[in-house]
């Protein structure tokens, strides 16, 4: 995330880490798993239909592989969309 921000000329320290510690917090936040990356509240890889909860999040890279983190290109595109 920080690499992607720096690549777009943005402050890599502009990332705020938030711990979601309880099921209630997850429900309130609409948190569907760790890690969830949001830019101005928008998920970089929206997970339609996923239930809120304290779980590991499954991402799919653009080549179809399962990953614990979003595809870097998805992050870069979300940043570019946010700064349009």
């Amino acid at each position, binding site marked *: 995330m920080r690499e992607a921000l720096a690549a777009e000329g943005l402050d890599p320290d502009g990332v705020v880490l938030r711990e979601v510690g309880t099921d209630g917090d997850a429900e309130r936040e609409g948190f569907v798993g760790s890690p969830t990356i949001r830019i101005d509240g928008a998920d970089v890889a929206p997970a339609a239909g996923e239930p809120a909860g304290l779980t*590991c999040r499954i991402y799919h890279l653009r080549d179809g592989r399962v990953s614990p983190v979003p595809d870097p290109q998805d992050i870069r595109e979300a940043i570019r969309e946010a700064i349009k």
Partner: protein
Amino acid sequence: MNIGDTVPPFDLPATDGTDKGPGATPTVVVFTCNHCPYALAWHDRLLSVARDYGQRAVQVLFINPNDAERYPRDSFEAMKERVQADGGWAAAYLRDESQEVARLFGAKTTPDVFVLDAEGVLRYRGAPDSDYEDPAQEAAWLRGALNALLEGREPDPAETEPVGCSVKWLP
């Protein structure tokens, strides 16, 4: 559980309706689950090991120890549905509802791989290979440990750091 320790016998229910545990042949025990991206990323590589080494009398047991109350995707029913949807697996998929077996092994993550010799002695513990992102790794550490065991050598490395999601322990 440390390298060189002997694992006490255990049996757990499998998705095929039987009870299974280590036998009189080398056994690979993989603590895994349905919902962890690391476990899913390594899954096909581990099944490939089960297919390849099953021909050499190695038994592969996948064990899901996660708390299914808080993580319903890891329920026994969900495990059965997953195996059925895949048309069966080359490895047995066992449910460790009480988490006693996971605690016995000291499992940390999904996946966390343990290789036992025919006498039940722990000979390898850790990750399947060095990179969950790279299918070309083909579970090289696990295959290396099994090759060593089957050829009468000591696995090298005998221990690597398990990588994955934490086991979801009961409250």
